[in-house]
């Protein structure tokens, strides 16, 4: 490829923007210059784009916010294996329209990502598509069966960014302890879906009064908290790095908060439904609000918000779980768990800003630099020389979520009909504009 020519014509300047970089607490009027795939320059001096070379393409942001592209650290891709529910392409399109420029995919595909060839397959396919970058998680145990460890060292060498058994918990304390210890060899991060299966199996929603009235078997909050408590101890004992996915209960927050105070190497995330919805959303047997972990009571929801505010919760991840109609239009007990979330991650997260729980920078930090730092990804911030992964949004602009209008192949959103603000307007990946509203 003629790189010199490419370079000369591949420069773009985004002017007239409200530049936001949560990593450096930057919130100013300015612009960004991209050169090829990289950020070449940014700052207030680029606000008008005056005095720049003629061959630079100028994009007027019309005072919208221009921020680093979002990093979503928990996404279920259904490819390979269940392409009728979602593909790398459908997830890529959906993610770019949600402002997400990097996402980390769970290993619960078919075949399972416990083998180097699957890691390489997913990464190669996603690269070819040129949409949102996909970083695969590797499996902690072979076949996600919770018994024998997967080849974490070699999987990491072939590109797995961290390790998890996906939507399954590593339920054996012995296996989890060994895995945390083994992962420490290579300084790998383990991500746990904290839910004790012997307490959760057979349950469909949060255990409590509502489940009682609805006649559904509940999943108690202790199913989550006892595993959080256990794994915190194991992480402390082994010195391994541990991250809890989609934390949903007040008690878990308390345990993690105290663990962090003691200096245990533990982090966690939650997903938008757990701070924006409570168990009442499943009233009337709405299967689209059947999530794993289940939506909890209002006190838990309030505690999640507190955890986000005080930094106990480091990250907000979409927990994107596409399910087709056939898996959701069923009696509640038979319906699949999960909801799509790529396109709604930004506006629901911004509710924390609009409701004055967080500043705009604080809210964005949970979906940009913090997940990037936990996973060691070279993105999520405005920095010269980094990949030009950007997204543009207007925090005030209204959007009524219409599940049928989502670009995701599966439409199972728990937020259908919700009034939000701050939809993504434009997404840039490696200097290419891949989405424009």
């Amino acid at each position, binding site marked *: 490829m003629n790189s010199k020519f490419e370079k000369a014509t591949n420069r773009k300047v985004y002017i007239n923007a409200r530049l936001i970089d949560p990593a450096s607490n930057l919130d100013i009027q300015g612009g960004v210059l991209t050169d090829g795939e990289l950020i070449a320059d940014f700052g207030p001096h680029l606000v008008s784009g005056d005095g720049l070379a003629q061959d630079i393409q100028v994009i007027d942001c019309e005072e919208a916010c221009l921020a680093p592209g979002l990093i979503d650290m928990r996404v279920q891709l259904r490819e390979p294996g269940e392409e009728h529910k979602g593909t790398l392409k459908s997830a890529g399109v959906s993610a770019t329209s949600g402002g997400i420029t990097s996402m980390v995919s769970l290993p619960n595909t078919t075949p399972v990502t416990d083998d180097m060839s699957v890691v390489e397959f997913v990464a190669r396919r996603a690269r070819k598509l040129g949409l949102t970058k996909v970083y695969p998680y590797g499996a902690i145990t072979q076949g996600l069966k919770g018994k*024998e*460890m997967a080849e974490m*060292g*070699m999987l990491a060498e072939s590109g797995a960014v961290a390790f998890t058994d996906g939507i399954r918990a590593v339920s054996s304390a012995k296996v989890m302890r060994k895995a945390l210890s083994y992962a420490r*060899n290579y300084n790998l991060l383990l991500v746990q879906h904290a839910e004790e299966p012997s307490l959760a199996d057979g349950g469909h929603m949060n255990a409590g009064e509502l489940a009682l009235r609805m006649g559904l078997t509940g999943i108690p909050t202790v199913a989550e908290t006892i595993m959080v408590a256990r794994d915190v101890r194991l992480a402390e004992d082994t010195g391994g790095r541990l991250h809890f996915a989609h934390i949903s209960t007040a008690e878990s927050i308390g345990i993690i908060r105290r663990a962090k105070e003691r200096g245990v190497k533990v982090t966690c995330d939650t997903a938008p439904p757990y701070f924006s919805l409570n168990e009442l959303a499943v009233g009337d047997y709405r299967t689209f609000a059947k999530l794993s972990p289940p939506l909890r009571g209002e006190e838990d929801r309030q505690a999640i918000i507190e955890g986000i505010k005080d930094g106990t919760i480091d990250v907000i991840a979409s927990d994107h779980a596409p399910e087709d109609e056939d898996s959701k239009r069923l009696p509640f007990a038979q319906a699949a768990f999960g909801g799509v979330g790529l396109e709604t991650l930004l506006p629901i997260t911004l509710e924390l800003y609009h409701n004055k729980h967080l500043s705009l920078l604080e809210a964005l930090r949970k979906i940009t630099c913090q997940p990037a730092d936990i996973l060691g990804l070279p993105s999520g911030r405005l920095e010269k020389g980094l990949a030009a992964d950007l997204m543009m949004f207007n925090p005030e602009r209204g959007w009524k979520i219409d599940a049928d209008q989502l670009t995701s192949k599966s439409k199972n959103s728990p937020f259908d009909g919700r009034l939000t603000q701050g939809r993504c307007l434009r997404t840039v990946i490696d200097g290419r504009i891949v989405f424009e509203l």
Partner: protein
Amino acid sequence: MSTRDRELRFTHRHLLGIEGLYPFEITDILDRAEGYAALNRERAPVPALLEGRTVINLFFENSTRTSTSFERAAKRLGADVINMNVQTSSIKKGETLIDTASTLNAMHPDVLVVRHGDSGAVKLLSQKMNCAVLNAGDGTHEHPTQALLDALTIRRRKGNITGLTVAICGDILHSRVARSNIHLLSAMGARVRLVAPTTLLPSNMAVLGAEVFHDMREGLKDVDVVMMLRLQKERMEGTYLPSQREYFHFYGLDYDKLSVAKEDALIMHPGPMNRGVEIDSDVADDFERSAIQEQVEMGVAARMACLEVVTANFEAWRAEQGQ
């Protein structure tokens, strides 16, 4: 050369472990073994110091190399040797260890060589036996004669042990060889490094007086001796390690990883080797650097010295008792 003329500096009736031995006791055994090694190599006759004595080899765990080595050593010194195969004995039928001891006592052995799968079992036997007891490996506790033959090999190749840096690599957690070697090498003034994945090398192993590494290239940097350990098959299938190939990739000794060690670094392995698991065949068979064959050779010499010293002490003890 008759080694009996030397002043006996080893002071114990049994040899149950290296831990607790003084450096001069270790040196005493090594010096005697050195003499035997020379005689063995020349196929020269050795003084029949154990003539008329009975040595019983009692192996509760399968072993070819160690039991043969002990048998050879005892026979070289003129002893009558009884090999007891536990697989076909009444011990298999449920006899307790203590009862076995009384049975064996009735045969009036002079030395009992024991290997047992449980840590501490040899010590328990030694408390009940009216003879000298030599530990040929107990559980994951100690394997003193292996450490002595390793030390003899190192001393012959490197001149001395003091000041050397020795890396012990592999399944240290489950290794009696590693424990005995750590004790011996640090007692003799070597710097000991332990190299293994975290699951096979808990960080508290540092309390044994060694430096802990989890990366081969860091652990092997500038070492004089690389001691590989055997990895049991059952540890490779996901419980301690994900797989054989992942283990070899990160911890198997090949020329690439060895390149950071000293140019004349000695390669050792207690055997039997898993080629392609903990050690690459090219390295294992390296004529210049691998001492693996020599270790087997030194095994006989080291065990002759051990038999000699414990027999001498046992006889002195008997004389004191007026038996």
